């Protein structure tokens, strides 16, 4: 089980937690990972980074002690819809890496594939982008106009608002993390997902009142964090809406109210669009299957 | 700050070699001259005794190789002490000329003395 894929491990952890068999830790519940049987030589040879992290950051030596572990959010499997050359639906906009979704990872991104995917498709995207740039002229006026509009929006908004009685960025961020982890975590259900969607709406209202301490235009990291948080609210909403529409369980998306895989309806990518009225529309696009048809997923032993 | 590229490897090689042989040879020399000799373990070492020792071809050739290396090791280290330590950048070329020049002078002097011992 310890060498199993991450989705299975996380689900097992949740199972233990529900049975009350996890241990209370300062940052949440944990289970203990025991590497002692491997011995120092094997650990130094095969898991040197693990040992270094444990000693440096937890003052624990895995050769002799147990490691407290719990699941965390680690990778965004979905992302910006792109083709094999990283091109998005906006001409001239390319995306690669974790932020992009071709999708080669399916419902569960396996270990080490993120790095190789980045190298392969990053190179393709870079070349395609260079080709495009070579063939295009100056950016159209509309792009410049958009940039000025955005600048005005920022100056009128987070950069210009009074901080009197305003909420801090960190507070909205923390609450978004809590919402996503509990509503769109390892196990999801309809009630939780719907609650999550209204929570994100509420967070958007709160964000609209956030003001920054940093008004400067020189390396303003608070502004960068603010813009990212604004985007995270959108991303959170796409996750919750897509999860709500996908009434099946597949890989890292596990619905307690719809267990089991439904290839007939959901062997597809969920595509999320923003409507004119601001709401979320989810469409499904069938997966392109060429060489290997999907089968039942089995793990040895 | 470095000498013209072809010369830097040369002075560094001399410095390096000088440091290494110094580390190897000086403890042995110290043991002989400052411990064994005063304790009388080498027999009487008066002027004639030492002269006989120094005149020996092996010793002369050996010292002829070692002494210049020691001098150049000093020169390189002292040059950097002045240049980097006291930050006398404007005198960079002058310091290099003087330190290596002195080392060269001392080496030639030593070689002459060793030669004239015979």
């Amino acid at each position, binding site marked *: 089980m310890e060498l199993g894929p991450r989705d299975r491990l996380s689900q097992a952890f949740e199972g233990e937690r529900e049975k009350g068999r996890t241990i209370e830790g300062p940052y949440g519940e944990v289970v203990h990972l025991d590497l002692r049987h491997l011995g120092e030589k094997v650990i130094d040879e095969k898991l040197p980074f693990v040992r270094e992290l444990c000693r440096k950051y937890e003052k624990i030596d895995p050769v002799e002690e147990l490691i407290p572990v719990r699941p965390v959010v680690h990778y965004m499997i979905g992302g910006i819809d792109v083709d094999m050359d990283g091109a998005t639906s906006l001409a001239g906009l390319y995306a690669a890496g974790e932020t992009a979704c071709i999708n080669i990872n399916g419902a569960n991104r396996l270990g080490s594939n993120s790095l190789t995917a980045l190298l392969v498709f990053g190179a393709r995207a870079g070349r395609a982008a260079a080709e495009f740039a070579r063939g295009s002229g100056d950016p159209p006026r509309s792009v410049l106009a958009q940039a000025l509009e955005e600048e005005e929006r920022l100056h009128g908004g987070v950069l210009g608002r009074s901080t009197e009685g305003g909420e801090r960025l960190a507070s909205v961020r923390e609450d978004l993390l809590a919402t996503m982890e509990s509503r769109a975590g390892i196990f999801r259900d309809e009630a939780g997902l719907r609650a999550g969607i209204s929570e994100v709406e509420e967070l958007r209202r709160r964000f609209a009142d956030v003001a920054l301490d940093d008004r400067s235009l020189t390396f*303003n990291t608070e502004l960068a964090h603010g813009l990212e948080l604004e985007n995270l609210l959108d991303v959170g909403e796409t996750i919750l809406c897509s999860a709500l529409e996908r009434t099946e369980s597949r890989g890292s998306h596990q619905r307690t109210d719809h267990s089991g895989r439904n290839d007939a309806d959901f062997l597809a990518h969920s595509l999320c669009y923003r409507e004119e009225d601001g709401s979320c529309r989810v469409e499904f696009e069938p997966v392109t299957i060429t060489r290997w048809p999907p089968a039942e997923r089995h793990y040895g032993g | 700050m470095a000498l013209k*590229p072809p010369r830097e490897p040369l002075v560094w090689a001399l410095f390096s070699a000088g440091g290494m042989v110094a580390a190897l040879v000086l403890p042995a020399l110290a043991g002989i001259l400052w411990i064994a000799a005063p304790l009388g373990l080498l027999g009487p070492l008066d002027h004639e005794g030492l002269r006989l020792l120094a005149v020996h071809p092996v010793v002369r050739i050996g010292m002829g190789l070692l002494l210049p290396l020691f001098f150049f090791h000093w020169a390189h280290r002292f040059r950097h002490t002045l240049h980097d330590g006291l930050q006398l950048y404007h005198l960079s070329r002058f310091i290099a000329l003087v330190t290596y020049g002195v080392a060269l002078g001392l080496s030639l002097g030593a070689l002459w003395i060793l030669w004239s011992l015979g």
Partner: protein
Amino acid sequence: MENAVDTVTLKVFRYRPETAPEPEYETFEVPYQEDWMVLDALNHVKDEMDGSLSYRWSCRMGVCGSCGMTVNGEPVLTCATYIEDLLPGPIRIDPLRGFPVIRDLVGDLGDFMAKLPRVKPWIIRKEEEPLDAGETLQTPEEVGAFRQYSMCINCMLCYAACPIYEMEPDFIGPAAIALAQRYNLDSRDHGADERMDVLSRKHGVWDCTFVGECSVVCPKDVDPAGAIQRYKVTATMDWFRSLLRPGRSG
């Protein structure tokens, strides 16, 4: 463990070029937690007290190299420096030495970014094998020859610690040379000659006087000082060889 400490004082370098031409120190009193690193304290300041404090950070686990700063005079990764080890405080936090300050704790690393490509930090091949020749195999020993130098995370602590770099900003610097060696010593690489020019000419390895501070502060045990001394040997041997073969460039 007995610890009556509730809070700890941070003395942080502030530089806000738009409003004040001179830098100053600002004091923050942050809560003390046993497992907090200096970075956790800075994040607390930014989240709860003053969002205008600018600094770089990312992975929080010592692999990205973003969070290098000077803490109590020493260049360190703030994500890997326990507050506990700096008690009772106050803890002084400055940007890394040797780099012009853009804002608060953020330095301009442009100099290094310009120097790095000069050492051609990539595999250079005389001739590329066709794809169907398969992967280029290396024995564990061959990988071992350069692995250490590949651990560099470009955190710039070595530049901050190097007294030569402080006095001679044109010195190509410890990390750049270590990274050059990572490729020079890689059995798949054929580019040692191309790198020799940059390394053995003005402000290359010969500026280094083996102070060794770079290796002392390196958080990944790259030992750039060792890499540089090894290269001096390589460059010297190559120079002697060129003497014996006049006409070949040294």
